């Protein structure tokens, strides 16, 4: 049987290679011009894996120094991921002033509520504090991205395939993190090595989604600002909608009254 640590190391090596491939695609397509935060996030994850492995070799994975470095870097990566997610949300929604104001305030409140919910649900053990906080933030991030996609679908906003794939990747990765994190905290949890393996595997799967999307990004066009109507056309649209709805309303009201007179 294959040793779990061997499997984990192999997955890590393949994932690091894939990170380089994604970075190559980003630079080839000059994607950093449109998605700077996302490009920085991918670069940061690559540096993180190099630093964490080096720290593990130097200080040992059981040492406190390693723990501090690993979780400190994880905190920075989380911040970078939030920035990348915000960048996508802004690119998709910010052209629509009214929708952007509404969505940003709703999503902000929703994320706060999710963090509070997740922390309230977590076990109060000090050694799980970092894991619990991390899980709360991951869940909030997944809800934020899906909330943004719900707004996009509800208002029929245009979204490039690249941005959609990036958003899907972020959501799936955050959800898989929440699930593996919860499995790790269960009384019958598997070993740390298996936990590492599943998390690396989830990131690998996410990178595959992103790599495919970015590779095709030759068709990627910078976001076109929302087309706003000239004043006369806008007036025409408002008038037509109102007239039509008033007619519908009048007809139905007439029916309502004819019912009353009948009975």
């Amino acid at each position, binding site marked *: 049987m294959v040793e779990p640590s061997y499997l984990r190391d192999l997955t890590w090596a393949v994932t690091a290679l894939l990170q380089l491939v994604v970075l190559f695609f980003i630079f080839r397509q000059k994607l950093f011009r449109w998605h700077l935060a996302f490009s920085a996030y991918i670069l940061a994850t690559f540096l993180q894996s190099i630093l964490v492995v080096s720290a593990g070799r130097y200080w040992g994975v059981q040492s406190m120094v390693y723990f501090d470095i690993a979780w400190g870097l994880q905190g920075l990566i989380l911040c970078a991921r939030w920035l990348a997610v915000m960048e996508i949300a802004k690119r998709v929604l910010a052209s629509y002033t009214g929708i952007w104001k509404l969505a940003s305030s709703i999503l902000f409140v929703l994320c706060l509520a999710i963090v509070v919910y997740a922390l309230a649900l977590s076990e109060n053990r000090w050694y799980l504090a970092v894991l619990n906080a991390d899980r709360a933030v991951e869940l909030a991030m997944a809800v934020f991205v899906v909330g943004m996609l719900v707004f996009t679908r509800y208002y*029929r906003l245009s979204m490039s395939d690249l941005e959609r794939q990036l958003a899907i990747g972020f959501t799936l990765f955050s959800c898989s993190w929440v699930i593996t994190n919860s499995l790790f905290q269960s009384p019958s949890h598997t070993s740390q090595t298996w936990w590492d393996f599943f998390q690396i595997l989830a990131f690998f799967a996410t990178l595959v989604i992103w790599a495919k999307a970015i590779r095709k990004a030759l068709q990627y066009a910078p976001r076109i600002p929302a087309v706003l109507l000239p004043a006369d056309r*806008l007036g*025409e649209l408002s008038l*037509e*909608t109102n007239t039509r709805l008033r007619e519908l*309303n009048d007809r139905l009201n007439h029916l309502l009254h004819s019912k009353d007179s009948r009975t």
Partner: protein
Amino acid sequence: MTLPLLLFMASAAAVILLLVWAVRPPRMSLTTEEALEALSQERHYARLPQILQSLREEDTEFMRARGQSDLLAQIREERKRIALRYLNYLLEEFQMLAECSRVMAKLAPELSAKGEFERLKENLRFALTCRSLQWRLRLGLQPWDSFGTLSDMAGTITLQLESAAARLGERALQATGSGSLANQGSSNSQ
């Protein structure tokens, strides 16, 4: 596995399910031009009184008195079928109006969370009432009460759209004063 951990995993699964729904393309999506065109098409709801008249029992009751029960049943079945088809048109029409209100929301400089939530609720209610109306017709029940409910809902959405249109009108007036609205929009987005 404890309950909180199960809840976390269920939450993550729910988010993934919502993601699957959210990335699916919507059934209907109108550009502003298409919205204008759709608004100028023929209105199905103009036929509503005739449809309801045909559903009234007294409209065909004389046939029973003349002993033409088979013909009566056939006519009523046929009229019910037409009414059901008509209801589908009515639902489509309402959905198209809801699409137009979304087009207006895209152009609006400010949206009220309460107003948007109310409209979403109205849309859902309208769809549900239409479905219940279809079932009432299929089961041979009189649909008057449900038509009353639809009337109330149409009234609410009209008011909401009117206030949205008024806000857009104000913005349009401002834009006329300082060039076109499109110019204003592009300068805002920079």
